[in-house]
């Protein structure tokens, strides 16, 4: 029912754009507010549908998945959460899929954050991952299979100091347990004891800083999930082989979920994203069509 109504709504929305085109061509463009209404509907209506869009896994995502799945059980992954709630729609699905994968493959995850709210996002992702029956079967334990070291201020210089010893920056975990009495941290001194660094980043400090310090200075192996807006800035580092793979935005999240074989929130919201996307593309087309029409009229 909701599905049908939503589809009809979307169709009407699309048709009414012809009127917008007409208004624009006659030199009386619609106001910003009308544009805003279109965006609201384009983003909102698909949330009432339950269709899944097709997803095509790109090489950069596959490379990351391969690198993660290649890790033997009990490998140590340092997961840096450098984002806050506003970026959660894109990064949270990645983080959830990541934890599910890590727990299923029995990898040890050490969580930290250079953003104050990053570790909380990690806790939420872990809580979500623990609901998965396959994960529950593995029964990951705090302190043994994963640990949350919390937030440390100091931006990229935290990474730099971690190079000489993690303990210097994180003497206790988020639950105030001393570093040395946490089983999963036994024998972890610095980056040479870490098999993989996974970074979820929405800006600075983030993936760029992890490349500059953890990879360039301490030789870590790095993979990252970024917001779509950050991703193009990370490409140079990816192409320079300073990292193994990259997830970009919600489509990156959906691809990640697909490559790991565990569909989740990323795949669901992708449809909304596609329709808002289409709206933006259509508005660009309308704006330019009208622009060329008026210019031709002036010239001719």
């Amino acid at each position, binding site marked *: 029912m909701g599905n049908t109504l939503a589809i009809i709504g979307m169709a009407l929305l699309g048709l009414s754009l012809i009127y917008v085109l007409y208004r624009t061509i006659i030199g009386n463009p619609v106001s910003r*507010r009308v544009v*805003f209404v279109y*965006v*609201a509907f384009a*983003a*909102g209506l698909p*949330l*009432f549908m339950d269709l899944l869009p097709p997803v095509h896994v790109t090489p950069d995502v596959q490379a990351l998945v391969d690198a993660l799945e290649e890790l033997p059980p009990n490998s140590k992954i340092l997961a840096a959460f450098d984002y806050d*709630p*506003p*970026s*959660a*729609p*894109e990064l949270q699905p990645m983080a959830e899929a990541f934890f599910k994968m890590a727990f299923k493959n029995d990898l040890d995850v050490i969580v930290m954050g250079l953003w*104050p709210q990053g570790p909380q996002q990690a806790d*939420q992702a872990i*809580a*979500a991952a623990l609901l998965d029956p396959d994960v529950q079967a593995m029964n990951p334990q705090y302190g043994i299979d994963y640990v949350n070291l919390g*937030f440390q*201020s100091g931006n990229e210089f935290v990474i730099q100091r971690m190079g000489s010893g993690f303990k210097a920056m994180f*003497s206790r975990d988020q639950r105030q347990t001393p570093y040395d009495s946490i089983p999963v941290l036994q024998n972890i001194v610095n980056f040479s004891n870490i098999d993989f660094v996974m970074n979820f980043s929405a800006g600075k400090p983030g993936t*760029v800083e992890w490349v*500059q310090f953890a990879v*360039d200075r301490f030789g870590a192996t790095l993979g990252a999930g970024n*917001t*779509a*807006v*950050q*991703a*193009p*800035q990370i490409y*140079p580092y990816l*192409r*320079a082989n300073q990292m193994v793979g990259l997830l*970009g*935005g*919600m*489509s990156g999240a959906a691809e990640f979920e697909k490559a790991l074989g565990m569909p989740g929130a990323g795949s669901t*919201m992708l449809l*909304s*994203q596609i329709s*808002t*996307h289409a709206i*933006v593309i259509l508005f660009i087309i309308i704006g330019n069509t009208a622009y060329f029409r008026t210019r031709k009229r002036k010239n001719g």
Partner: protein
Amino acid sequence: MADASPIGIFIAGVLTLGIFSFLYKDNPVYKVCEAIFIGVSAAYWAVEYFYSALYKKFWLGVIPPEGSGADPDMWLWGGAILGVLMLCRMIPKINWLSRWPLAFIVGATAGLYMMTFFVSNAMNQIASTMQPLIQDTFLATLGSFTVAIGTVTGLIYFFFSKEHKGIFGGAAKVGIWFLMVTFGASFGYTVMSRMSLLIGRLDFLFSSWATNFGQMF
């Protein structure tokens, strides 16, 4: 926010709608949201910095808790002294002293950034561009030529002391096109990200908030 209280979720939804109302026009509801936002967030960061920098970094640094085995870091006093000098601004007679910490920060930022960006932006980017131009496939070769030409012409565009005329001007034009491709690509990629923020918000309004709303009333 998964385990937030019903009242918390209710307030969150109302504030969300309040912010959205700005899209129509500036109005009292938005003004209230803005006022709350400024007050609460300024205090949030004040507290966060107070505990993370002043308490954790400075206080526990100069007076390490017993049994931690750490030596007191006397260097940290330097920061505190500069901080106190900053406060001299409030005393008219000696407010010129506040320029010392400011001068320190400006000098430090200039020095640090100069090196970090020089190594990471300049050296590493140049080094990564040093790829063999001739590759196995035609497309890969085209790609490496594109990168080399784009980087060089892009730099030509930024030249300040040479007029963009003749061949140099032509190269600068190609350069600005490369910059425009970069901007276009960033824009195209950004759209996705920004839309997902809105979707996240709407998802909250339609699911958590609406459900919660139904349960409350």
